[in-house]
């Protein structure tokens, strides 16, 4: 046995290892990149979900932008006000009040019984929207219910229940992932600033006659809600009532008036109190109220015919 060769081998390897170790240690000093300590601190308080709701590439991207002062401290939708306050403390500024936002699916799934054909394919809305006709639903605007949003949600906050996507208000962080993925563009972020949140869960731009053919209670564009809104917060956009949340005070009059019982207040369709609201207008400006009151009646019987 020639031990010389063993010794040389060990020495060479140890020497190379030590040399590389020294070089790397030296290089770590020479090439050290100064990371803003604020950036690391900001990154520390972020949730780390990398949801992209802030508009930056992940939490580290947002932290870098905040540290440079290029991004507001309260842009993290997932973290909410608690995180905004922490970041504000690190950056030495005030966070300001954040308006809580939630994703809202603008479809009640009322068109599910009106299918144009049976869709047999990839269980995915984006794929279904690519086939001719854009999926099984007759309504060209409704929720396809194949759960692309469910898969996209990083917080497990949106689920397809009975064929239509529903948002879990407790879990939703308003990151906007579902808004982006929905091929029908029926999900939107809505501010929840008033105590009573009024929403119009329909996206149909069809005219009333066409809308009736493909769903049970979708918006028919009758504009009763818009006419009755005391704050003029509802406008008709291409046969669809749209709420301006800057003006909405959550009174719920529109929900009372809606002939399709579509508009919801805090997620529920309010029970129409026939006595009080109808008696008041009938008593005073009878002439003005009468045609309005007739409108829903005229539309209601039309339904069974179709």
């Amino acid at each position, binding site marked *: 046995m*020639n031990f*010389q*060769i063993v010794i*040389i*081998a060990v020495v*060479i*390897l140890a020497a*190379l*290892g030590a040399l*590389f170790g020294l*070089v*790397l240690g030296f*290089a*770590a000093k*020479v*090439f*050290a*990149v100064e990371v803003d300590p604020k950036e690391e601190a900001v990154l520390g308080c972020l949730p780390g979900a990398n949801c992209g709701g802030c508009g930056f590439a992940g939490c580290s991207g947002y932290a870098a932008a905040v540290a440079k002062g290029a991004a507001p401290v309260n842009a993290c939708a997932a973290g909410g006000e608690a995180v905004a306050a922490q970041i504000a403390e690190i950056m030495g500024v005030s966070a300001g009040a954040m308006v809580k936002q939630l994703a809202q699916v603008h479809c009640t799934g009322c068109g599910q019984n009106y299918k144009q054909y049976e869709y047999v394919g*990839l269980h995915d809305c984006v*794929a279904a929207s690519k086939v001719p006709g854009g999926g099984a639903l007759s309504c060209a605007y409704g929720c396809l219910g194949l759960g692309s949003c469910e898969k996209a949600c990083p917080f497990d906050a949106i689920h397809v229940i009975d064929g239509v996507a529903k948002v879990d208000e407790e879990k939703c962080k308003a990151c906007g992932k579902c808004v982006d993925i929905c091929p029908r563009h029926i999900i939107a972020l809505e501010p929840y600033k008033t105590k009573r949140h009024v929403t119009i869960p329909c996206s149909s731009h069809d005219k009333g006659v066409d809308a009736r053919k493909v769903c049970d209670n979708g918006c028919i564009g009758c504009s009763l809600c818009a006419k009755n809104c005391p704050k003029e917060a509802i406008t008709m956009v291409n046969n669809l009532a749209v709420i301006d949340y800057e003006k909405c005070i959550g009174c719920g009059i529109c929900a009372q008036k809606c002939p399709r019982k579509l508009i919801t207040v805090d997620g529920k369709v309010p029970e129409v109190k026939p006595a009080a609201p109808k008696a008041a207008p009938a008593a005073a400006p009878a002439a003005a109220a009468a045609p309005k009151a007739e409108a829903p009646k005229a539309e209601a019987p039309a339904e069974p015919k179709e």
Partner: protein
Amino acid sequence: MGFDLANLFSVALGAILVNNFIFSQFLGICPFMGVSKKIDTAAGMGIAVTFVMGLASAICWPINQFLLVNPAIYGEGGPNLAFMQTVVFILVIAALVQFIEMFLKKSMPSLYEALGIYLPLITTNCAVLGVVLQNTQNGYDFITSVVYGITGGLGFMLAIVIFASIRERLTFSECPKAFEGFPIALMTAGLVALSFMGFSGLKVF
């Protein structure tokens, strides 16, 4: 041998097509399967591998030549340390990748961002070790080694980009339940490898 362009071309062609690291030598399969879900990331990995393979070839050649297979420096009748090649090269590659990462982070942040997480992943890429070991086994000189390293990396890039583009379509195509995911991906890789066999026997001279 000197600066023989025809020979270099032959080596390059061989590394890219005939002896493709993925499809005919089956080296570097782990990153090949792992980072081939999107063409963008596949191309990023390919560039990073090419970069490291070329540099590793350049660094390992003198170490091998002057320290390992040069008994004269250990005195009269010194040992030939060729048996140490594998372990020394692993050490060199690991240190090199670390060094490159630090260097890029400081001096070329844009390239560092572009290579991203792929750079540290290369430490464990056996294609890099394969290229330096083959350099010594084939007795390449310095320039040929570097050319073999870079073109080997290009071959890796070609393979991973081709495979990623197939795999992007594979996601949306129907296949039997039992084959979904990795099984069908491995079969596809096998079929592409089979098609690359068509290059075997390709010779410049």
